């Protein structure tokens, strides 16, 4: 039987390392700032996600429901080692991504939500969270899965994801894939972009973002 004191002395938290913000140019010429979101910003992020719980397609509703739970859990200290990055364009929240560390070597890639579709917002944010995990948090592998098969095949090709059939991704009931550190660096030049540091005023503007109506909720859109 383990000593209670020994049990309490185990450090479950992996030391948090920040994600240095970066900025990149979208197809429209607009600059997107990708920065880490703080725990304090979660209530705003939940408000941004809420409308998507009724989203009509592409599993946005499932993704929204799960991401809502993840962020809420993180906010209320029920989930350890979770990180969230946000994409902000012109002071508006256009997307968010989240990850969770199992331990210092293994990261579980959780979700990617793009409020603005078809602008590569999701692709850039996905790349950024893996950049954070491998290059800043120092993990060796990232477990990846996806609700929507459509974009996922491309993800497998673009990142060289390897199947990991023995492992259950915590999202459960779906195939597990792995992004190894080796494959991350192999594909980095084609997938990870952005310049640091972010110019002062651009960074300032990204701090207090406004929420926009997600494209998928609009009856008429691009």
């Amino acid at each position, binding site marked *: 039987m383990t000593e209670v004191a020994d049990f309490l002395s185990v450090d479950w938290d992996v030391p948090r390392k920040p994600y240095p913000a970066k900025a*990149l*140019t*979208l*197809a*429209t*010429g*607009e600059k997107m700032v990708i920065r880490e979101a703080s725990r304090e910003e979660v209530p705003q992020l939940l408000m941004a996600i809420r409308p998507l719980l009724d989203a*009509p397609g592409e599993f946005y509703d499932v993704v929204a429901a799960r991401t809502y739970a993840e962020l809420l859990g993180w906010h209320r200290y029920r989930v350890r080692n979770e990180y969230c990055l946000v994409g902000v364009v012109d002071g508006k929240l256009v997307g968010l991504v989240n990850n969770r560390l199992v331990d210092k070597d293994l990261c579980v890639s959780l979700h990617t939500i793009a409020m603005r579709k078809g*602008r*590569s917002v999701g*692709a*850039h944010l996905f*790349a950024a969270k893996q950049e954070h995990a491998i290059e800043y948090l120092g993990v060796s592998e990232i477990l990846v899965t996806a609700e929507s098969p*459509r974009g996922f095949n491309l993800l497998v090709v673009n990142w060289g994801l390897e199947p990991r059939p023995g492992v259950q991704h915590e999202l459960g009931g779906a195939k597990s894939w792995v992004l190894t550190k080796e494959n991350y660096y192999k594909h980095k030049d*084609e*997938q990870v*972009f*952005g310049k640091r540091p972010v110019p002062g005023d651009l960074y300032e503007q990204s701090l207090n973002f406004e929420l926009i109506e997600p494209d998928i909720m609009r*009856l*008429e*859109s*691009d």
Partner: protein
Amino acid sequence: MGRKVAIIGCGMSKFGRRDDKDLMGLLVEASTRSLGDAGVGRKDIDAVYVASMLCGELTHQTAIASALADELLVLPAAAERIENGPASGASAVKNAYAAVASGLYETVLVTGGEKMRHAPGPIVTDLIATITHPTAEYVHGVTLPSLAGMLTRLYMQRYGLEPRHLALVAIKNHNNGLKNPYAHLHRKITLEGIYLEPEAKLNNPPVADPLRMYYCCPITDGAASVVITSAEKAKKFNDTPVTVAGIGHATDTLAVHEREDPAVLKAVQISSQRAFDMAKSEPKAIDVIELHDAFEILELAESEDAGFFEKGTAHKAVEEGVTELDGDLPINPSGGLKARGHPVGATGVAQIVELTWQLRGDAGERQVSGAEQAYALNFGGFGNNVVSFVLKRSD
């Protein structure tokens, strides 16, 4: 060629992702606008032609022309669906022209429409791929973008085309689209964002390399409509009706690899020649053009093979700004298929709608000043079934 034929009314729906309406709703949106613009009543319509390539496959409704006649209450007018792949729209206008020119009908409504955004992309791509050769192309996984990709690579190798030129065409069309309230995409794009910056690789991912996402048109819902009648009668409706001066229709081998020269769009050459012959006109006389840029390489190749530029030089003209709205020869003032969008059956009709507005002086911010003669090209199959028009402003 029988009676002279004129366009007395035109209109279109907003193009885009239209979850607010079904296909019939879009056809009605466009038709009521063109009928209203023409100032004709229900009883005046003798025939309805509806252009739609995939209404059966994508909306589970086939006799769409009968349905539109019923919906618009133009019964007992004649009604027919015209299908010619991506050239369905132009073919419908052509058939309506023939009916009026021959005296069979007096006043005809032509509406083209498509509802496509509700279906998954791979399914739409696959359905459109069925216009390719079944055993020589389709079965190998060939899609329209792949054929355009192969054409692009040939152009790069033979004529020194660079991806940058495709980007310039896309940017021009997006800028024009911003001035078109009916266009699908109202999105400014920049050379930095889609080509120059390192992140352009992700912003503008490959579709059929060397073609990238921003060099290909979107999948769109929408409808466009025109009302045509004899030029004689047209004077009652309009002081300066737009006459259909020339039509040219030509075919080529089904399989792209069997074309005499896969980089030359022979059917475009012949169709264009036929249209100019009938109109007793020539490319030099044209003031404004609508081309079928399902892929931006096609705007370049079509402009050459239709007779406006020497083969292999259109990309240089683009660099010089010749085809901009304020250039010497504006191409795709509407934004083209790239920005206006491409609801397959609607496109050919939408081109005629834009040119009618241009020739009337009603094109708003997109107006090409002093437009008197216009040219449209609707590209069916992958260049093996091409319909082109020469329209003239009749004073």
